[in-house]
């Protein structure tokens, strides 16, 4: 399936291969949840409440007799979805503002960079908590708020790239040819700055998954009965003394997923920045 050169490349980059493996495995598990899950996520087996992992319930059951494995699989869809959409929102805001800031410079740049400074000084988890608690803690709101409070890194990165790219000849040529400014920004400059941006986005997905699970753990994220890894942990906390498996597996799922995205992002960054691996 894989051509030999790709296999050789991955063989030399163990971290990247491991990360990609985790990411692909987790995505497939989440996508295939309806077929892979042994039970529906909200099916209550009231005669099998709080059961330890067994052959019948591979990872045990919770206090309503729901199968943990099935809920983990469905919860994975929520976590990954939040990660992707929130990451996408922060990527689009950061990219747009970064391009504008770096391309127009002067007072526009000053304005955007000061906004970035302000946002970086926010105790952002406080702000996220406040906003989510006020709005309904729905999936959409969570994704929007996480996206709105995490675009600053991408913005700085894109701005720095744009500052140097805008002086290049192909940009001058595009300008001379009468290309419209948005087209220059998104068609000519952005593709050349894409690699570092996508790497940051990978790390952003991991960050968003962590924030979502923290919110859900505090009861302000994804609301039951919809399963998410964070709210499964919250529910498990109450019975941690008698049924620790409720708390162990969802956390493990978060750990592995975030690890996967971080491994991909970090090893790609090392590859792009040969100074570090010289």
């Amino acid at each position, binding site marked *: 399936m894989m051509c030999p050169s790709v296999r050789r490349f991955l063989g030399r980059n163990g971290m990247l291969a491991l990360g990609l493996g985790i990411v692909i495995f987790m995505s497939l598990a989440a996508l295939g949840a309806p077929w892979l899950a042994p039970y529906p996520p909200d099916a209550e087996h009231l005669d099998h409440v709080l059961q330890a992992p067994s052959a019948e319930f591979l990872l045990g059951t919770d206090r309503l007799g729901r199968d943990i494995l099935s809920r983990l699989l469905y919860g994975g869809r929520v976590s990954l979805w939040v990660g992707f959409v929130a990451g996408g929102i922060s990527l689009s805001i950061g990219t747009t503002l970064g391009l504008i800031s770096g391309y127009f410079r002067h007072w526009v740049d000053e304005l955007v960079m000061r906004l970035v400074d302000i946002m*970086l*000084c*926010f105790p952002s*988890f406080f702000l996220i908590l406040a*906003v989510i608690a006020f709005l309904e803690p729905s999936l959409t709101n969570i994704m929007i708020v996480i996206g709105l409070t995490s675009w600053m890194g991408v913005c700085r990165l894109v701005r720095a790239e744009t500052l140097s790219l805008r002086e290049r000849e192909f940009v001058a040529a595009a300008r001379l040819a009468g290309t419209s400014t948005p087209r220059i920004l998104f068609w000519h400059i952005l593709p050349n700055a894409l690699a570092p941006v996508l790497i940051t986005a990978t790390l952003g997905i991991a960050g968003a998954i962590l924030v979502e699970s*923290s919110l859900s753990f505090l009861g302000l994220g994804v609301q039951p009965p919809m399963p998410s890894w964070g709210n499964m*942990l919250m529910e498990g906390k109450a019975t*941690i003394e008698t049924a620790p498996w409720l708390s162990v597996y*969802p956390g493990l799922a978060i*750990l592995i997923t975030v690890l996967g995205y971080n491994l991909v992002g970090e090893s790609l960054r090392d590859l792009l920045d040969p100074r570090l691996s010289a």
Partner: protein
Amino acid sequence: MDGPLSPALTPADLPGTPLFAALLRLGRKLFWMLLVLWGITLISFWVIHLAPGSPTDMETTLNPVAGAAARQQLEALYGLDKPLHVQYFDWLTRLLHGDFGNSMSADARPVLDKIFERLPLTVSMNAISLVLTLLIAIPVGILSACRRNSLLDRSVTVLVFLGFAMPSFWLALLLMLWFGIDLQWLPISGLTSMDYPRLSPWGKFCDLARHLVLPITVYTVGSLAGMSRYMRACMLEVLRQDYILTARAKGLSPRQVILRHALRNALLPVITLLGLSVPGLIGGSVIIESIFALPGLGQLFYSAVMARDYTMIMGNLVLGAVLTLAGNLLADLCYGFADPRIRSSGDRQ
């Protein structure tokens, strides 16, 4: 300025002196910080007040006994019936006088009082974990940079990646499970035991310490990964410089090269990272304090958010921003202190 007619120092010459330049830089920085602070109050005030729901909900809509009249009275009491920009300027004016207002919850105590009784716990937990983090991360970072790709470096890298991905609340649950429940070594929640008032001073101290071991461990693990990774990266960067080669070439021992020449330069970026990590620490306190049931700032904020206590939330956000800015300023000053190049160039940021 250095004309032959004015050999003595006159006020007109002042702008040339290094002290004046430093003060000017500090002044400019303080002015800029005030501007950022103002921006933060502006954004958070509008976001919080425009969001649906109000502090009067708890006492009126959700309370079947209270009617519309009671709600209006409460709103008039809190000033919520005025237009939003008037409310903002009222609030800002009071803030400039050092008055954060009264909490909009039932006890109606001054916000500042409530914050200050919670602050010591959160700040001291963070401070202790910061010291622990630095004590561990700096040597670990140096060692893995100097022994690059050794077994030590590789295992540290694995641990760092696990640390990055570890949700703090999960780690807290696991630690509670192992050390609190299975081994029965440490208490798993609260700040003091039931018999605390009857203990001797030393016993009180030990009791407090035992309760804080797990939370501080969670704090420390959370920042350890980032810090040691960053230290390693900075050290690698410095070790490639020409002056390190020079130091080696003139026959200094590896120990001297690392500790005298490389370390000081590698520590500079770490100082900046410390300043930048304050918002994360403040945010993390919400989760850690709620898991371990510790009466700190994070828990205060969480309950304020749940009750839509506007003045309390704003007080916390402003305080968080002030702490962050103070951290950044401190980092800047330390940076200037450690690196003469920054001092002389007088450059912004």
